[in-house]
């Protein structure tokens, strides 16, 4: 029994609003919560197998060159060492999100300092670590480009990432007000708390892999292609993932090394990256240089926008940080020049880090908009409202829904924006207020899920979708519970297993809408089957607390199912609605900062976000996603910065003591509002992605508040003390 929907038409039925269980949208606790708080949820490196060996990766110590030989024999003599491995199947770097094939492979060519080039396997972790630290690599260095600012760097300007409309130069000349500035953001790292890890073992010719995977469907093909086996011979499990934020979209070097070693040694092998290896050998968000030109008339209405961005990347990688992705449609302005440059360098691979594109692109745009607000003397909220376009200015498409004005109003009201007084002090702290808009593109990916209604009235949901902290276990449970009228304690959700129906996976804020829609469709089909059994229209069927009601007659669900389970597979597929209209989520940030007039230190005192993302499936977990996004923004604004040694490109601050993510004391009690919205173009649940919106522009809000407090405009993130202090008034 299948239900297949290609999203070619808007769905205005709002079916979830008309169900009876009352579970959807509630802040239901995560069903897997008791496992997580007792340490009994098993993450990748915890599914220990009998006779398991431990592998430790060895990194390249030059930026570019060849690995000529390794002294494996010397290491294999050490106690407990079973094997030193390298070779043409080792991954240079993780696969990019949705790559679906192996990334660049081979340990003989070195492309960046930190590239994993060998694996030392031993009976214990301590032996393997000692072996890895003792291994001598014979390398020949080649000339490397280790900085995006290098004169030797090759610069690409892909045609499909350049666009222009009208005459921006003329618009700038004729404008009543202009802003022309360059903003820079440093590299960032995802830094999930769980380092990338894998345990691999073979059963006959089949590879069993426990891994830290966000996208199982793609990861299976990536690992199969990397190892050189059929995807049918890979069983990948990733039921709990300790955070991803993009870094676990594609299969990573640890997983392939573990698989190869397990095959070679005929024993289970675990490989866990050290925190330093996660920094160096997974993905970084590229640093950006962004040149903005804004032209506005006397009322602050934009007549032109120019946005040119430069990012960096390893050779032979197709991904580049899509910095300008949302610039074309956030604000009006008929004259435009938007373009991207990609510099090829020998440094850690650039990849997706939470909200690739908007996280840094909208942050820079929203600082530029604040500069325009200051120049025009127009309130920053009002300035933005004046510039909301009727249609996507780049191509004339309608918006599926547009909630920026509502979010700006709601946020301003909740925060008390109108009541703020500039120029206040609190002891030695200068107080300031800032705001910014949030925007993120919205999409779905093909996703399959199976829902089984058992004879005892319990429900089983199965899909290879992952929960990386995003709340998947909760929301899928709620969707099925709502549609089938079953309480959450009678529903089991199984995730993260390649034997289950293939989902879109977690990434790009599309997971909940994609996997959720597949569960919705499967349940809708089951409802039709139940209605058939009752001889009524499905629309007239009420399902609640395990009871079906039709034509004033109540029947227990378990009686209707009969002796054998009812099963349905739902399939959602993106269609015309993703192309014919512009789909996006919107929001607004407001904050208050204190800047210390003696030290230049900034402390965030309060921060609010108002967001609209279609139907909110779980009010509690959606709020948590926004807290997480906003806190990424706090880090981006104030502390987070990958520092590279220009001589060899290596990441200098490759641990959590030197790369500063926000700690508890850096984050006040943030507040979040959700706006009521149903987006019929998005999917049959009218929901949109919420996992990334909270970071898109958040850092600008804080930087704008610093300017309000001090008059110091920081255009080179993060706003560390050294950048703020010189501009502060004399004591």
């Amino acid at each position: 029994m299948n239900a297949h929907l290609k999203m070619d038409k808007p769905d205005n039925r709002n079916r979830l609003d008309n169900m009876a269980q009352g579970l959807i949208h509630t802040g239901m606790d995560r069903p897997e919560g008791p496992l997580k708080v007792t340490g009994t949820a098993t993450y990748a490196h915890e599914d220990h197998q009998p006779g398991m060996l431990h592998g430790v990766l060895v990194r390249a110590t030059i930026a570019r060159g060849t690995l000529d030989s390794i002294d494996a024999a010397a290491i294999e003599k050490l106690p407990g060492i079973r094997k030193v491995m390298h070779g043409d199947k080792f991954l240079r770097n993780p696969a990019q999100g949705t790559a679906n094939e192996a990334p660049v492979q081979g340990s003989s060519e070195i492309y960046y300092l930190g590239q994993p080039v060998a694996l030392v396997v031993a009976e214990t972790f301590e032996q393997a670590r000692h072996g890895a630290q003792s291994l001598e690599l014979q390398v020949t260095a080649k000339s490397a480009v280790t900085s995006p600012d290098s004169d030797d760097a090759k610069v690409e300007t892909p045609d499909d990432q350049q666009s222009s409309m009208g005459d921006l130069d003329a618009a700038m000349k004729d404008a009543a007000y202009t802003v022309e500035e360059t903003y820079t953001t440093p590299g960032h790292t995802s830094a999930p708390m769980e380092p990338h890890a894998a345990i691999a073992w073979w059963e006959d010719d089949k590879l069993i892999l426990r891994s830290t995977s966000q996208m199982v469907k793609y990861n299976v093909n990536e690992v199969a292609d990397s190892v050189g086996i059929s995807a049918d011979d890979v069983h990948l499990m990733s039921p709990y993932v300790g955070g991803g934020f993009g870094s676990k979209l594609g299969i990573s070097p640890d997983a392939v090394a573990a698989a190869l070693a397990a095959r070679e040694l005929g024993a289970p092998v675990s490989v866990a990256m050290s925190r330093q290896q996660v920094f160096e050998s997974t993905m970084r968000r590229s640093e950006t240089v962004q040149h903005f030109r804004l032209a506005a008339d006397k009322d602050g209405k934009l007549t032109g926008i120019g946005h040119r961005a430069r990012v960096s990347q390893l050779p032979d990688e197709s991904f580049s940080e899509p910095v300008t992705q949302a610039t074309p449609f956030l604000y009006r302005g008929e004259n435009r020049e938007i373009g991207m440059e990609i510099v090829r360098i020998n440094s850690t691979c650039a990849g997706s880090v939470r909200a690739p594109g908007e996280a840094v692109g909208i942050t820079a745009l929203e600082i530029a908009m604040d500069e325009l607000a200051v120049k025009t003397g127009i309130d920053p909220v009002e300035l933005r409202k004046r510039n909301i376009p009727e249609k996507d200015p780049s191509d004339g498409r309608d918006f599926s829904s547009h909630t920026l004005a509502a979010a700006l109003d709601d946020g301003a009201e909740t925060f008390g924006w109108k009541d703020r007084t500039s120029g206040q002090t609190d002891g030695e702290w200068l107080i300031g207020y800032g705001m910014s808009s949030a925007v993120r593109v919205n999409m779905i990916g093909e996703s399959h899920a199976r829902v089984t209604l058992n004879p005892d009235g319990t429900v089983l949901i199965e899909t290879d979708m992952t929960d990386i902290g995003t709340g998947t276990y909760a929301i899928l449970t709620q969707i099925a519970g709502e549609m089938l009228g079953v309480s959450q304690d009678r529903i089991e959700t199984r995730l993260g297993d390649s034997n289950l129906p293939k989902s879109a996976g977690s990434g790009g804020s599309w997971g909940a809408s994609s996997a959720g829609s597949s569960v919705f469709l499967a349940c809708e089909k089951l409802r039709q089957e139940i209605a058939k059994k009752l001889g009524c229209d499905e629309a007239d069927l009420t399902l609640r607390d395990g009871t079906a009601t039709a034509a004033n007659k109540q029947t227990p669900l378990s009686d209707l199912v009969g002796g054998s389970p009812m099963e349905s597979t739902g399939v959602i597929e993106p269609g015309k609605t993703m192309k014919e209209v512009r789909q996006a989520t919107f929001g607004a940030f407001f904050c208050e900062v204190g800047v210390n007039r003696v030290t230049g230190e900034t402390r965030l005192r309060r921060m609010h976000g108002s967001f609209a993302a279609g139907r909110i499936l779980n009010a509690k977990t959606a709020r948590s996603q926004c807290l997480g996004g906003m806190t990424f923004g706090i880090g981006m604004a104030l502390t987070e910065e990958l520092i590279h040694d220009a001589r060899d490109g290596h990441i200098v601050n490759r641990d959590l003591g030197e790369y500063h993510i926000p700690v508890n004391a850096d984050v006040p009690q943030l507040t979040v509002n959700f706006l009521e919205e149903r987006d019929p173009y998005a999917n049959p649940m009218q929901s949109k992605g919420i996992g990334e919106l909270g970071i898109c522009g958040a850092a600008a809000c804080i930087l704008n508040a610093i300017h309000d407090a001090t008059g110091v405009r920081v255009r080179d993130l993060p706003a560390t003390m050294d950048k703020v202090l010189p501009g502060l008034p004399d004591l």
Partner: protein
Amino acid sequence: MKTSLKINGEVHDLDADSRTTLLDALRNHLDLTGTKKGCDHGQCGACTVIVNGRRINSCLSLACMHDGDEITTIEGLGQPGNLSDLQAAFVKHDGYQCGYCTPGQICSATAMLQEVKDGWPSHVSDSLTGTYDLTEAEISERMSGNLCRCAAYPNIVDAIRDAAGKVQS
């Protein structure tokens, strides 16, 4: 190297390489994988356990240094169906997302509440002696050794205040 560890009330006789950290002993030798490895350098707090009543980073300590010590890990604080007050409050307030830092957060909070009861001041305390209210600032400061990249911090603060009985709900 032979070491006797009393973990969650049960004596475990460990015979491990002297280089084995307490964290790796728990995870790799005793299959107590509730304690997490996030950095192995004492920078993230995911490996926090309680040793003789005090919270420590188990990655910064060798197992063989703990002969005879009483160790409490997350598994010793409660189990599904029998959660401690803090564990239940973390579920209720969504004091986590991915869950990886959570055992460390809860072990840390368990010991932290005792530190407050014992009159230990923190960096944000007004005085070095006396009693301390569990304000948001006190909790945030005292919990800042436990990183959470999902950034459940506001919910962690709420969960701890709730479990400590400061918030009626």
